[in-house]
């Protein structure tokens, strides 16, 4: 996951010997040094970038992904920070044990003190002593629709975040940089809301049954046909919950004797589904095609462990956009590998459907590939469609099989009718079938916002992870105290951000994660950027040593590339 030490600022895939030979598929070209990018950008005339083919034509557009290495001083100081917090944690635990300090966390009753302990004190060390101190940055209750701006209920704590009290104030108009509202469909006005309200009056809110019994509405059938058309696949099936889509359908597809090759940073739903299935799981390094190819080769050559029989199935699990890193999967290479080694591909487009691609059809559209190459296309309606639920798309036989064999289809309640209508309306809007060009504008606005925001942040000198085109923007904080400080300072300035630390990220790589939206106007983004700039100076977050030459008076266009001075 980490780039090679040596100061290279962009990902450079390690070219191990033996992975590439004559006549075989070569791994896709990556813009590994920005100097080369600048030269190539200068060489290719403006406007022709989209059609530059590189390296056998696998990538129709340049793939710019960068994960700048942690500066050594910052890493050492982060450990010092955690060390100090740990020491104080031990001290506070000691005080709590000897009743010098009030003990807020759960303990057994007096009568049960001699039993086997119910609460594992040591395992909750981190929660008790680190997480609790900055807990006010999470679980903030919002009381309006999570659009570009949101209202947050103000709360106070008088015992250092062990309990909260609501002051009764509502902080209005907080700029929302945390909701997965990529296309701006989280609204309570407009055609989607009117359609959903109409259907609510017609069908009610509950379905009261599963799809197999009597909960299969005509709306569900309509939605599934629409989803299939949207994705470009033969058939699709929808489920009530995105997490349950993954965790309940992977066990239906693979079982014992099958092999799952899963990316290092896959979401918990994919991991849970893989573990529930009982298949053997092997993990390849994040977005690293050499690692994946090596695993595929070893799997086919050596077969199952001990018996050496061939695997029944090999399933590659990847995501479209990884929401913690902001990276996009190298789909052309994955598909090339899958075809070469005859494996199956399961693509989880939770964050990328609607958010990537010129027509918003996801990462397959973004790379200009054929949807039939992906065997199982999974996605959720939660992010870009402003609804809830998930879908799986693929060949008709696959979907028919899943209708009877998936736990989610057989036991879980089907989607609620107003939610279905919201999805139908928003999907038609994105496809342009509602007669307006609103969908196309939203998709374009999101792409512009993404480029602009990422570029401005990099110019300011923050370390930003991920791909140039990904609307998920992680800004590195590193030190534990800065996690709390950043969240609170931004809220003081009326901007709501999501900050993430250990264990959701590696121990030193805590970050703030911005999710851009088509609902954000340029003014909103400029306000947010100004505040982030201020907070960055206040907290000294501008770690990047690869400063960008700032944009001059060039109007925004998609052909601008980074020029770095090294």
């Amino acid at each position, binding site marked *: 996951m980490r780039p090679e030490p040596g100061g290279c600022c962009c990902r450079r895939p390690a070219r191990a010997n033996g992975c590439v030979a004559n006549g075989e598929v070569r791994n896709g070209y990556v813009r590994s040094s920005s100097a080369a990018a600048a030269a190539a950008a200068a060489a290719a005339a403006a406007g022709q970038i989209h059609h530059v083919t590189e390296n056998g034509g696998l990538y129709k557009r340049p793939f710019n992904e960068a994960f700048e*290495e942690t500066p050594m001083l910052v*890493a050492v100081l982060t450990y010092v920070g955690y060390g100090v917090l740990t020491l104080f944690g031990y001290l506070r635990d000691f005080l709590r044990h000897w009743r010098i300090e009030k003990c807020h966390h759960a303990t057994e009753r007096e009568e049960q003190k001699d039993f086997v302990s119910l609460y594992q004190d040591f395992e909750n060390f981190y929660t008790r002593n680190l997480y609790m101190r900055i807990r006010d940055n999470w679980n903030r209750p919002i009381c309006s629709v999570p659009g570009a701006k949101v209202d947050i209920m103000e709360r106070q704590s008088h015992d250092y975040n062990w309990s909260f009290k609501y002051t009764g104030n509502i902080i209005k108009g907080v700029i929302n940089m945390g909701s997965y509202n990529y296309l701006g469909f989280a609204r309570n006005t407009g055609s989607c809301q009117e359609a959903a309200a109409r259907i609510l009056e017609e069908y009610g809110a509950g379905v009261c049954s599963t799809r197999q019994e009597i909960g299969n509405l005509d709306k569900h059938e309509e939605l599934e046909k629409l989803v299939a058309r949207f994705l470009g696949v033969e058939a699709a099936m929808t489920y009530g919950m995105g997490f349950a889509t993954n965790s309940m359908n992977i066990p239906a597809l693979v079982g014992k004797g099958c092999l799952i090759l899963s990316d290092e940073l896959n979401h918990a739903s994919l*991991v849970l589904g893989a*573990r529930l299935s*009982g298949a053997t799981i092997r993990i390849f*390094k994040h977005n690293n095609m050499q690692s994946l190819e090596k695993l595929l080769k070893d799997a086919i050559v050596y077969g199952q462990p001990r018996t050496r029989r061939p695997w029944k199935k090999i399933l590659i699990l990847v995501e479209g956009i990884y929401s913690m890193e902001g990276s996009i999967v190298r789909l052309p290479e994955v598909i090339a590998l899958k075809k070469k080694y005859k494996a199956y591909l399961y693509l989880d487009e939770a964050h990328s459907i609607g958010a990537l691609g010129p027509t918003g059809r996801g990462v397959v559209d973004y790379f200009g590939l054929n949807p039939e190459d992906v065997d199982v296309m999974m996605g959720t309606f939660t992010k870009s469609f402003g609804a809830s639920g998930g879908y799986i798309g693929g060949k008709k036989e696959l979907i028919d099989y899943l209708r009877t064999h998936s736990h989610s289809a057989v036991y879980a309640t089907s989607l609620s009718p107003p939610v279905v209508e919201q999805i139908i309306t928003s999907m038609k809007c994105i496809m342009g079938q509602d007669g307006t060009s609103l969908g196309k504008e939203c998709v374009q606005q999101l792409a512009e916002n993404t480029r602009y925001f990422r570029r401005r942040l990099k110019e300011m000198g923050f370390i930003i992870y991920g791909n140039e085109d990904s609307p998920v923007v992680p800004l590195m904080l590193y030190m534990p105290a800065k996690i709390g400080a950043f969240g609170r300072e931004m809220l003081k300035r009326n901007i709501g951000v999501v900050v993430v630390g250990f*264990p*959701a990220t590696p121990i*030193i790589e805590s970050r703030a994660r911005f999710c851009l939206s088509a609902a954000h106007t340029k003014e909103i983004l400029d306000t947010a950027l100004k505040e982030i700039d201020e907070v960055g100076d206040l907290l000294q977050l501008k770690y990047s040593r690869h400063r960008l030459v700032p944009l001059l008076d060039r109007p925004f266009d998609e052909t601008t590339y980074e020029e770095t001075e090294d």
Partner: protein
Amino acid sequence: MAPAPRHPSRALDLQLRTAAAERGDRMNVGTAHSEVNPNTRVMNSRGIWLSYVLAIGLLHVVLLSIPFVSVPVVWTLINLIHNMGMYIFLHTVKGTPYYGVQFTASQKFLTITPIVLYFLTSFYTKYDQIHFILNTVSLMSVLIPKLPQLHGVRIFGINKY
């Protein structure tokens, strides 16, 4: 300072994760990486070895600034405190930073550090007899539990539960 032999431990990480998955290990709610023991990653993180050495250096400077202790005593103290700390955190407190896979790069680092410290201490104490006995006993107490044969072994039933 970045550890070059990171790749062998990664290959082992793959194997151990396969083993873990085949055993059907518990769910990790709220974690990014699908591994059972996040502590394995911490020892391979960027800058941790440098921080470790700096921490020992800081302790050394703190001890040196106590006015009435001589240099040999300081070095012996550093050796003893470091080994005691290592013993407590790695061999008393339960939970595995290695998850059963031997000979990782961080394991080698953690074995070599007390040995290097021992050499330096022996030099600065001018091989005095009492210091030698103390330092050697302390070194043994930290090296022997690291042997692969002693993984999971509990002598006299101490710390069994």
